[in-house]
């Protein structure tokens, strides 16, 4: 790297030309819309003003206040959607990580068909969301669904429950998301497991460590960096979750399964209240920012200075 720093100005010009297209694309699709998003959130952009939305009246923080006011329908839904997404994320991330770790450890053992299994577990990960969640929607159907067939057959229920409407809907989506999400955790945890030097385990066995001690003293500390990253990415993905809710429950999942993305989409593109939609999406971004920062700071105290 040292050698590079001495390079001439002209070479840097080449570098700028090379990143220019990527910078322009990112500015146009990410950063400029984001700035306009702040602008829209402070203006009353709705069905009447949207044609000339740049000149919509300035309303300050009104959109934020209205969007989060529990006395209004939207506000009540917005607050509930934050609760729902938090519950959903905690369960989906926790279960996804635990199952992923368990399967990664399993696939790190010696058994026949190991290569085949390593390929097989990738299936849910690579299956398009629109396919996987529609199939789960089919499974969760009340009268013709696979789940209720077995619940009735095994006498666990007498009447077929309705899974995709009301409070159970959130859990149905969570189960489908876990099914789709754990393979990614398993994949990267398995790769990290394979990098742990075997000598560590041999030395531990010589010292008489039990399997559980080996797991807590060697495996978990060695997986730390990868786990931190995996959980961080899961937080970002799950808090922004949209596809599974939209595909399984439709445009309006109902208040019990409402999440920020579905609410914002409807608020903007069905109710045509772009200002409130923008304000709520900024609230979502700020919450994510706070969670990520707290998470990283909390971990930094104990983590070594490992690069990410």
């Amino acid at each position, binding site marked *: 790297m040292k050698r*590079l720093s001495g*390079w001439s100005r002209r*070479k*840097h010009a080449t*570098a*700028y*030309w*090379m*990143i220019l*297209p*990527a*910078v322009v*694309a*990112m500015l*146009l*699709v*990410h950063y400029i*819309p984001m700035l306009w*998003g702040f602008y*829209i959130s402070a203006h009353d952009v709705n069905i009447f003003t949207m*044609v000339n*939305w*740049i000149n919509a009246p300035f309303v300050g923080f009104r959109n934020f206040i209205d969007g989060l006011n529990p006395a209004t329908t939207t506000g009540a839904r917005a607050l509930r959607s934050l609760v729902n997404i938090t519950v959903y994320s905690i369960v989906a991330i926790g279960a996804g990580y635990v199952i992923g770790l368990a399967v990664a450890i*399993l696939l790190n053992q010696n*058994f026949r068909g190991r290569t085949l*299994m390593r*390929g097989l577990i990738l*299936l849910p990960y*690579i*299956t*398009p*969301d*629109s*396919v996987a969640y*529609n*199939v789960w929607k*089919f*499974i969760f*159907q009340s*009268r*013709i*669904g*696979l789940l*209720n067939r077995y*619940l009735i057959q095994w006498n666990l229920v007498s009447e*077929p429950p309705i899974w995709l409407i009301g409070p159970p809907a959130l859990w149905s989506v969570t189960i489908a998301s876990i099914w789709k999400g754990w*393979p990614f955790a398993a994949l990267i945890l398995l790769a990290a497991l394979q990098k742990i030097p075997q000598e560590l385990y041999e030395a531990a066995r010589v010292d008489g460590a039990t399997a559980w001690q080996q797991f807590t003293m060697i495996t978990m500390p060695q997986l730390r960096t990868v786990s931190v990253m995996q959980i961080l990415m899961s937080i970002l993905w799950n808090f922004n979750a*949209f596809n599974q809710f*939209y*595909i399984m429950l439709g445009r309006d999942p109902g208040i019990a399964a409402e999440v*920020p*993305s579905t609410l*914002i*989409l409807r608020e*903007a*593109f069905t109710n045509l209240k772009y200002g409130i939609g923008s304000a709520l*999406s900024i609230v*979502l*971004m700020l919450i*994510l920012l706070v969670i990520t920062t707290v998470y990283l700071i909390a971990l930094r105290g104990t983590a070594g200075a490992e690069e990410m």
Partner: protein
Amino acid sequence: MKGRKMRARSAKVIKQVLIYLAVLLVALVVLMPYAWMVSGSFKETLELQSSDVTVEHLKPSWIPRNPTLRNYREVNQTVPMLRYFKNSIIISLGTMVACTVIALPAAYALSRFNFRGRGVYTVSVLATQMLPGILFLIPYYLIFTTITRHTGIPLRDTYGGMIFTYTSFALPFSIVMLRSYLNGIPLEIDEQAMIDGCTRLRALWTVIVPLATPGIAAVAIYAFIMAWNEVLFASVLTGRSTRTVAVGIMDYVTATGANWGGMMAACIVISIPVLILFTSMQRYIVEGLIAGATKG
């Protein structure tokens, strides 16, 4: 002595049995929805509509009572699936090409030059990954409508608009992925080529691109799959003429009618390109790993 040996051996056998049981369980959980999808795709509409979990002889079965190919033959009948498929192919291929062409020089610059602002740029690339898609969607949509109103250039519901959008989505991760791949190619290779009289761009094209093919292929396939699967922006920005499969497939089951057989058949059809591409990418990744191991 003998007893201890036998105990150790039976413990080993038990462990093996437990491993196979666990593997079986994992395989069952992974495969169950696919089996249900395949089974559903061969069922007659009548069987699906009349099935009822509460009635013993009507409960949904794994084996279709009268297996039929009708759902596949008529996949295009109630929903214009073939048109959605064509739209998805055009948008995904366009995204793949555009993303690769833009990501390669950017990744190369990040990997080879220590230019001012490199750190800021890298952070800004990663930051876009963290932000909720819905945050851009509203302003993005309004900007689209305003540009169209002032210039007359249609952006919403056009291939170009969608390809541009998805290219920008796929870029950040593509650049990061490709940069780490290029970092694995020694600097001496560029230098050697430039000593031999190549310009920087020529060296990139004739020497680095062939070496980085597995990385480039992985990026290209990532971009294709991303565009193929995207739902949120497609649900707002596509319309009659560009509706993609990821959104279009929902047309099979609406408030007015549920054609689950057709939907399951369509699910299988739209999974095929993704499965083929991913399987080919796995080969590239393995190749890349072997190349890295033997050269390192």
